[in-house]
């Protein structure tokens, strides 16, 4: 009897091993890093799906006359107020290669958009350096103008009827069109080959709205800055980037293992944007743009940043 108990006790204790208290090693599933504020959209952004109203977004306000000489802005005008202040406050980008970007060596802002801002400053002050640059994200362009924090936004901004209700645009200074950038080994040939795949664009951009409303239903991924898209493409977190060919050209220049494919599937006419109240400034800048197109400055700037220049976009006015 007692021997049996001993055997039983041995069996019972033998069956219940004492586990180690040490925790498991973990780290089984790597968590890839993501750019700040990157989100995969499940529903189209609020700006998407706004029906194109009966308006021509490319038509701007007609200049009232020839440009006043630099430093002698008409009294009471918006330009006189800016001249009084001593500097033009301009909203630009520092993340879009060739359009508005920060030169990593000098730390200076450069690009086609930035050079146009310098032309505006030159027209007001006679000094292309009298500028306070403020970096704005795609999403912040309209709110910044509405709050009156900047005089002008020159930041790869497409003139749309929806935006015209909140801000004013100049005449078109660059005719861009939306295309697709994919890794060079991808067999995608256009936007419609990206159904169900992740496609990156910035928050608040018309590109994002265009991607979200495609009938083939690509999955839009929204980020804060354009370069965040290139980071996500290089890290394999998105399958493609879709935006204006001007911006895509900047990406392709930074990464030889990418290619721009497909036709332009949405026209993106760029305009400089102004607060809704500053109509005189819009007319002033339109007069300046007339001159830049005519005297070859536009062609020179295009050659410098974007390559062989086409014919400058023709100004359209709504008076």
């Amino acid at each position: 009897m007692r021997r049996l108990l001993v055997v039983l006790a041995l069996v019972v204790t033998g069956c219940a091993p004492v586990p180690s208290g040490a925790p498991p090693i973990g780290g089984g599933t790597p968590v890839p890093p993501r750019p700040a504020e990157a989100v995969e959209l499940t529903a189209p952004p609020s700006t998407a799906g706004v029906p194109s109203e009966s308006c021509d977004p490319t038509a701007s306000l007609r200049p009232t006359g020839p440009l006043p000489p630099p430093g002698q802005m008409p009294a009471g005008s918006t330009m006189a107020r800016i001249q009084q202040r001593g500097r033009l406050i301009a909203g630009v980008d520092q993340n879009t290669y060739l359009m508005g970007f920060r030169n990593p060596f000098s730390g200076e802002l450069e690009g086609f958009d930035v050079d146009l801002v310098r032309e505006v400053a030159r027209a007001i002050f006679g000094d292309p350096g009298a500028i306070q640059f403020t970096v704005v994200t795609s999403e912040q362009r309209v709110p910044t103008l509405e709050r009156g924090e900047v005089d002008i936004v020159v930041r790869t901004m497409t003139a749309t009827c929806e935006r015209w209700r909140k801000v004013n645009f100049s005449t078109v200074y660059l005719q861009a069109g939306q295309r697709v950038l994919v890794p060079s080994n991808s067999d995608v040939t256009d936007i419609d080959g990206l159904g169900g795949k992740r496609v990156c664009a910035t928050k608040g951009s018309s590109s994002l709205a265009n991607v979200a409303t495609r009938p083939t239903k690509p999955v839009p991924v929204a980020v804060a800055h354009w370069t965040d898209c290139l980071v996500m493409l290089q890290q394999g977190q998105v399958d493609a980037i879709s935006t204006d060919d001007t911006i895509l050209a900047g990406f392709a220049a930074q990464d030889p293992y990418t290619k721009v494919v497909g036709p332009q599937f949405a026209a993106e006419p760029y305009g400089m944007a102004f607060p809704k109240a500053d109509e005189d400034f819009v007319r002033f800048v339109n007069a300046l743009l007339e001159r830049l197109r005519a005297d070859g400055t536009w062609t020179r700037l295009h050659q410098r940043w974007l390559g062989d220049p086409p014919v400058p976009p023709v100004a359209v006015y709504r008076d």
Partner: protein
Amino acid sequence: MLVEAQRNRGALRRVTGLARSTPGRLSLVALLLIVVSLLVGAVTAWSVQRRSDALEALADRSEPLAFAAQEVYRAMADADATASSAFLSGGVESAALRARYEADVAKAAAALSAATSEITRSPELTRALSTLSGQLPVYTGLVETARAHNRQGNPVGAAYLREASTLMRTRLLPAARELYGVETGNVVRDLEDAGSLPWLEFLLGVLALVVLVLAQRYLTRKTNRVLNPGLVVATALTAISLLWVLVASLLVVHNASASKNEATVVDLLARARIATLTARGDETLTLVARGSGATYEAEYVEADRALDDLLGRLRLVNGTPPVVEAVEHHARWQQAHREIRAADEAGDFTTAVALALGQDARGAATAFDALDSDLVDAIGTARAELTDAIGRARAGLGGTVPAVVVLALLAAAASVFGLWQRLKEYR
């Protein structure tokens, strides 16, 4: 079964029978004294050992681990601030900033491996530690990618740096903060364990003395001798043991409370240093964002307020010269920061960057470096005082456990000897 019960009853009868005769009672008293002396000795020794273990855990594990955790946090926050400064300065980063970043990464990795060595002690930290060791290489990878792009003039480098900074701020630093919080909590807990008042030791010692005195009185009544030499010796030995334990324990309690003050100072200093680094990172990133950095500036204001509060509290509890200087340098930095913001908001970006990064005596970089080195000095001093206090506490307990055991054995032997003298008279 029946046989067993009979046997038990027999034993009981023998003991009660023993209690009826005087020699029998004397034997029982001797037995009681042996049991009480040994039991009290054993429990007291165990209690002292527990206190000593708590001190050992404190000196060998929790305090070094808390320091390692603080280093992890500090090095990572500094790496992030340095990487953004290097970016803001433009071009290829300076050798000094690069060296500082590399030192931070090396320090973070080394401190992390120290912090991970005792993972079983705080199993709740598993997640935080695996985040830290898993994401640190990812972070450095992103920074190096950013560098490679910067060197080729690709603006995407800035985006990689932003991603790295986001990773640091949303995953690594919160995990480091959790690690630091738990390890500092362990220090406080061990200090409390070591510094508890020695009530148990006191009560046990008094119990042993009372039993000895009662036994003495019993003997005085039974025999005509006033004092039994054996019991007197046993009582003296027990009293010595009690005194020894009480003095040693109270010394530990005293040193532990001093250590607790030092630990509070070290904690305040460490948090002040981390707030300093956070504020510096935010100051730089506000400029990097160039007009879209309002959230960074808000975070700077928050970190700066925390720093102000921490320095104020430090000044009250620890008015040493480095702390006083730190307060001064902080005020200078705040002044420089106001100038930076004023210049940036007035559109003078170049002046703002020069004020933030330049080696001008009025600039933010100089004030920040001075503040940081004040805090390093103060942390070094406070930590040395903390480990000293812990060391003194440990020294106080040295040899107490064997002494308690030996004294208990001797007291038991003396009791038996004393009673044996009386028992012999009944032979």
